[in-house]
């Protein structure tokens, strides 16, 4: 009998700490599959964020570093400059990449650092208990927008991928989703492209992934996927941005 499906070598065989229906585990696996398929496990270096994925390095089976909240792209910039032969990626949430780390994000992108960025947009702060993220939708209720996000008070959802696409140093930006198996396959393709770009030394690549957080969206896992499909993608349209 032929074995056609197994755990990627780059993913450790341990249970994750993520809530039921969370998207992080799916994306961890997609990255591990891509790393295996590209044969780069022995030269990849991952940067874990501060946020729910803070211990991503416990799940991946390759070299990793932590970074202070928001500083993943500063850390990654230096590692890649020091070791250009290694493949360096950051894994960051919306708070990390688009709030506290906006400066590092924009400037690493603008310098055209030859890096791969996996950006998890779940429109919420998960680790700290469901507060407003820069990407929280208008009307969305969170711990810090109990009446729903109001543009007059909290501004609008930040479309950082569109902002970055305007920068000369940026090679590739794509927004994908985890709301269905088809979209997950597309997400994997985009992740692969972002790594291939780095291997081919073409410059800064970012994949924004719309990812479910059933716990802090106060939904069932299925409702969360439906919400991505029917509501979130209206604010954050899927597809290639650059």
């Amino acid at each position, binding site marked *: 009998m032929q074995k056609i499906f197994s755990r990627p070598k780059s993913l450790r065989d341990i249970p994750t700490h993520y809530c039921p229906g969370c998207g992080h585990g799916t994306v961890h696996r997609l990255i591990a599959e891509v790393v295996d398929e590209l044969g780069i*496990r*022995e*030269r*990849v*270096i991952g940067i*874990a964020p501060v946020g729910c994925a*803070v*211990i991503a*390095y416990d799940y*991946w*089976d*390759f*070299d*990793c*570093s*932590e*970074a*202070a909240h928001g*500083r993943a792209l*500063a*850390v*990654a*910039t*230096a*590692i890649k*400059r*020091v*070791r250009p032969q*290694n493949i360096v990626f950051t894994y960051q949430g919306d708070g990390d990449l688009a709030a506290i780390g906006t*400066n*590092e994000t*924009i*400037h690493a992108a603008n310098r055209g650092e030859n890096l791969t960025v996996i950006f998890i947009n779940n429109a919420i702060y998960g680790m700290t208990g469901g507060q407003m993220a820069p990407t929280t939708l208008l009307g969305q209720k969170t711990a810090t927008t109990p009446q729903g996000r109001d543009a007059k008070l909290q501004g609008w959802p930040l479309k950082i991928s569109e902002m970055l696409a305007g920068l000369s140093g940026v090679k590739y930006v794509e927004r994908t989703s985890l709301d269905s198996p088809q979209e997950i396959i597309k997400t994997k393709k985009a992740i692969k492209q972002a790594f291939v770009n780095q291997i081919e030394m073409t410059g800064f690549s970012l994949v924004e992934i719309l990812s479910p957080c059933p716990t802090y969206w106060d939904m069932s896992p299925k409702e969360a996927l439906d919400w991505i499909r029917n509501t979130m993608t209206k604010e954050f349209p899927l597809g290639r941005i650059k």
Partner: protein
Amino acid sequence: MTGNEAIAEGALQAGCRFYAGYPITPQNELTAYMAKHMPEKDGIFIQAESELAAINMVFGAAAAGERAMTSSSSPGISLKQEGISYIAGAELPAVIVNVMRGGPGLGNIWPAQSDYFQATRSGGHGDYHSIVLAPASVQEAYDIMPLAFELADKYRMPAMILADGMLGQMMEPIAVNSKIKTLSTIDYRLSTKKWALTGCKGRKPNIIKSFYMREGDLEKFNLVLQKKYKTIQQKEERWEDMFLDDAKIILVAYGTMARIAKSAVKRLREKGKKIGLIRPISLWPFPKQIFRRLAIGNRRLAFLVVEMSYGQMLEDVKLALNCKFPTEFLGRSGGGVPTEEEIIKYAENI
């Protein structure tokens, strides 16, 4: 060469091959020197978008096994504190240069020694220390850099150079390579850094982190740090002293202030005053042993601490002496520098 340039050249001679910084006066010559000369050594220079980015780039470069450094001045060093705490927590070797200026807040760009507490008491959050070295001349600013990198590598922790705007801007001739060759006792090549991130070829993955969530793990790790700090306190105290044998009054000063104090001591000696000097070179670990040695026996001594602050190192002197001797203080800050005449006048009245 200015003190700022001497620090940069000393770092390059010490094998520093990564520098990231953000402009701030009075240390800009250091950044400019690195921009010009780092590429000649095939090293990496990055003008970062902020001090936060710069210190986190140093974190990354150190994690990748490179000898890495950043520099700034007081307000910028405040911004770097979070990163320094992470470097200490992740046990990474790195060198941070603070060319101190007046504070608090934006303060001014005149020389000061007001960041002594911040440098020697850890500065950022958590129970950690940085090794802190204070050069007092342009030559020493150059000579001390290999030592800073070696100590950082040896103990896998941040080492800080605490200079001030006067030393940074001062121009003096220096003898290149005067002490550097003899200092290189630690092999800092990547092959010795088994923990560095290089890709996991032929070994288990390396993880660089300062995060310990499981019950008891952080306490265990912090005890490892404390053990390391104890070793450093036992082995790495450094100071210079003058005329201690017959001195009745002992001046204590570091950095630029120590040079002025030294001139005052010489003039007072010419006048027949029994006066000596202790110049701490390592501020952390503070050179307690020389003070403790003086405190043994029945000698009657008085101390005069002189700083460009309102009394920060003063606390360490009192602690080292266990308050056994009267300890006077003369200090100015915010750009004011105690003069030779002020020191002489004060000392003559003790």
